């Protein structure tokens, strides 16, 4: 039943192979993979990681609502930084080595230096203070810990939400050791996803200083652990380590969006645009049309032959990147393979346009130009839709303040309408990027990188696939109709 169509597919591959295009593409892909394999990932030493953790904690930032919201502690008018605690790792030792730096057990002491406010600096009166009693020294560190746990304004009461000067905060309850441990644990979890297995406050005679001994257990998620990366087998090294998941996402997003999304697809459009016109050359087409096979089957399977070309290439590239990433970075993320069907779909719409143009003109140059023009137009529509989304958010905010109905600009409405109606080429790219993010980053990393917030505006899978598939059917239908009625 499928013998004849498979023969056409095989013939397309033979054509691609013989013309050396497939071979050249595979060689280029192989060179590209060598480039990818030259990227090295060196896990940062645990001591460095904990020191970096302490340094990050020392930033003049208040972490509200368990760190969901972070506010820089600075007077925006004068640029003066408000009082804030600083943290230093003073001792470190590894209790048990792991297979990976993230999976070992470690112990370190962290010194918290806090400023004790003088009574005259404490700008709000202590409600517990009785008349005539001296004001208590207020620990800024505790205020920051309290703000971390504050979800409803009970722990820290701000007179004015806009006024973030910690000297004006007023504690409404005691800050316990458990709360301080959780503060450290949550922040450490974000940084390394290493759990705190032991927590002890050590005595110190230094005023305004607290010392804690923290013991950590093995991390369940090495993607959080910071790594230093190098390219060209160590010729260039990154100055600062980055969490592995974020690093891999950044690299693969660039690889897939640019190398995959743009280079492979555009080259494939050019290479495959010769398949149909070659078949339709006078003297060639009559040979095929005289055989007992329908013209529609002939054209559709020639089209599938082009798609097969791209499937081979993308599988080779994505599979290679997956394998190299697994070996070099220890992250085996099978989710990246969804890029293969998504990129194929992205190419499928362009190749359907190319096929229709080729059947009409029997000229590969015309097919390339028409396809690239359509791709450019679809890309612009996609970008305009993204811009219109930003525009709508701003208009919505403004309208909410004014308590009016939002009034969107005409171009924004047109961009949304066009994007909904036309092949969702740009949306496929967005979905591809999201799929890569999901497979390579942890949930917290996605949140940190902002891809979680993108999800709220992520194009729907059904709409993207459905509308694009309908357009593919339309262009192929047009090509098949023309091919069926034309005399050769």
């Amino acid at each position, binding site marked *: 039943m499928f*013998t*004849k169509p498979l*023969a*056409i597919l*095989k*013939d397309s591959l*033979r*054509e691609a*192979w*013989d*013309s050396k295009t497939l071979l050249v593409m595979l060689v280029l892909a192989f060179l590209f993979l060598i480039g990818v394999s030259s990227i090295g990932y060196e896990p940062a030493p645990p001591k460095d990681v904990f020191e970096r953790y302490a340094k990050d904690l020392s930033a003049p930032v208040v972490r509200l609502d368990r760190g969901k919201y972070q506010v820089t502690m600075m007077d925006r008018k004068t640029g003066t930084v408000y009082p804030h605690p600083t943290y230093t790792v003073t001792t470190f030792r590894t209790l048990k080595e792991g297979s990976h730096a993230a999976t070992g057990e470690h112990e370190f002491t962290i010194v918290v230096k806090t400023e004790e406010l003088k009574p005259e600096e404490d700008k709000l009166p202590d409600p517990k203070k009785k008349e005539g009693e001296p004001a208590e020294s207020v620990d800024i560190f505790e205020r920051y810990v309290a703000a971390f746990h504050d979800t409803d304004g009970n722990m820290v009461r701000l007179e004015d939400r806009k006024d973030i000067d910690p000297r004006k905060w007023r504690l409404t309850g005691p800050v316990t050791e458990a709360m301080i441990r959780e503060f450290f644990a949550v922040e450490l979890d974000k940084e390394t996803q290493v759990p705190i297995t032991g927590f002890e406050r050590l005595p110190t005679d230094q005023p305004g200083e607290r010392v804690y001994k923290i013991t950590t257990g093995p991390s369940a998620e090495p993607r959080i652990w910071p790594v230093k990366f190098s390219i060209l087998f160590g010729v260039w090294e990154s100055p600062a380590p980055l969490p592995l998941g974020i690093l891999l996402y950044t690299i693969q997003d660039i690889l897939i969006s640019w190398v995959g999304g743009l280079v492979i697809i555009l080259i494939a459009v050019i290479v495959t645009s010769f398949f149909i016109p*070659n078949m339709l*050359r*006078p*003297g*060639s087409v*009559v*040979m*095929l*049309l*005289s*055989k*007992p*096979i*329908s013209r529609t089957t002939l054209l559709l399977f020639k089209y599938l032959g082009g798609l097969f070309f791209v499937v081979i290439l993308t599988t080779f590239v994505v599979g290679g990147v997956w394998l190299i990433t697994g070996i070099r970075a220890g992250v085996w993320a099978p989710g990246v393979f969804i890029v293969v069907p998504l990129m194929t779909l992205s190419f499928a719409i362009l190749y359907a346009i190319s096929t229709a143009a080729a059947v009409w003109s029997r000229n590969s140059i015309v097919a390339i130009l028409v396809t690239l023009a359509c791709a450019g137009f679809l890309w612009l529509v996609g970008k305009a839709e993204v811009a219109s989304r930003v525009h709508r958010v701003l208009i919505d905010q403004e309208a909410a303040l004014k308590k009016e109905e939002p009034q969107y600009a005409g171009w924004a409405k047109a961009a949304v309408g066009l994007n909904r109606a036309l092949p969702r080429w740009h949306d496929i790219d967005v979905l591809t990027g999201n799929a890569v993010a999901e497979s390579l980053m942890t949930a917290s990393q996605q949140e940190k990188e902002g891809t979680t917030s993108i999800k709220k505006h992520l194009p729907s899978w059904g709409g993207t696939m459905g509308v694009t598939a309908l357009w593919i059917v339309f262009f192929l239908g047009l090509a098949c109709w023309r091919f069926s*009625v034309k*005399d*050769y």
Partner: protein
Amino acid sequence: MAVIETRDLRKRYGRVEALRGVTLKVEPGEVFGLLGQNGAGKTTLIKILLGIVKFGDGEATLFHHPAGTADVRKRVGYLPEDHRFPEYHSAYSLLDYYGTLLGMPRDERRAKIPEMLDQVGLATRMHDKIRTYSKGMKQRTGIAQAIFHNPELIFLDEPTDGVDPVGRKEIREIIEDRRRAGATVFVNSHLLGEIEMMCDRVAIMQKGELIREGTVQELTKQQGVFIIGVSERDRDVFPEAELRQMGYTLRALRDRWEITLADGQSIDPALDLIRDKGLRVTHMVEKKQTLEDIFVSLVEAAEPGVEDRRKRRLAARDDRGRGRDRDPYDDRYRDDDRRDRRRDH
């Protein structure tokens, strides 16, 4: 039961009427030749029969089924004129690909392809890429792909185009083999001699119409024309004027005379006169019409001017040759000699 049957078949390309009511029947086992000038509609007719071109009005059937259906095409082999095979194939892989499209099982393909390529003389090169083949080899590949699946009907459009004389002979033998195997062969060719040698029946097409059809014998039947030669010493006294007076039409050739009889007239009185004059007759053959003569005269009748152009060309050559000693190998005479030799044969 006709293998090919068309009735009042018409096809129009815009303003051009490519076929103007073609009615044709080809019987099983026949080798049928279709002659015509370029643009006469021969290739269009074949393409309609194969479903490559859609026709306007009329009827066209192959094996009593509508022409161009997939079932019918399975029983047909086709060699187009100016074919262009995908050059990334070898002859073997091309036949394997086409065989798959024709629905041939793999084992059958593996058995028949080398055998067929051996038959057309490509056995030693069958795994080389077609791009390395000469024109003749490509034509042999074309012949092979048209017949390797044992079709009941074979369409050959200029089958000997670009093939050397030995190759032509081989191709004629292959066609003859197919005919003996029971296949019907439909040949388009400009090489009238080839058609004359290969075909049982011939049709002549001009401007989309069939203007003559019949067996080769019917078309080239005797027209009462004789070529007579006398010994060299008698040539100057050949009784041209007297023969003309007797009602014969004479045309002087290099060293012979072409004598055309009037209706009902015999050659015997002319021979008697020549002998009575004491001349020695050294050569006498009855001239037959060749297919080329028929073709040119029919085309001339349908499209006046063709023969005039030919005569003008000949006259121009005569002018160029005047004033020189007559060269026995002059093209004019070589043409006549060659034609005579073919007739003698």
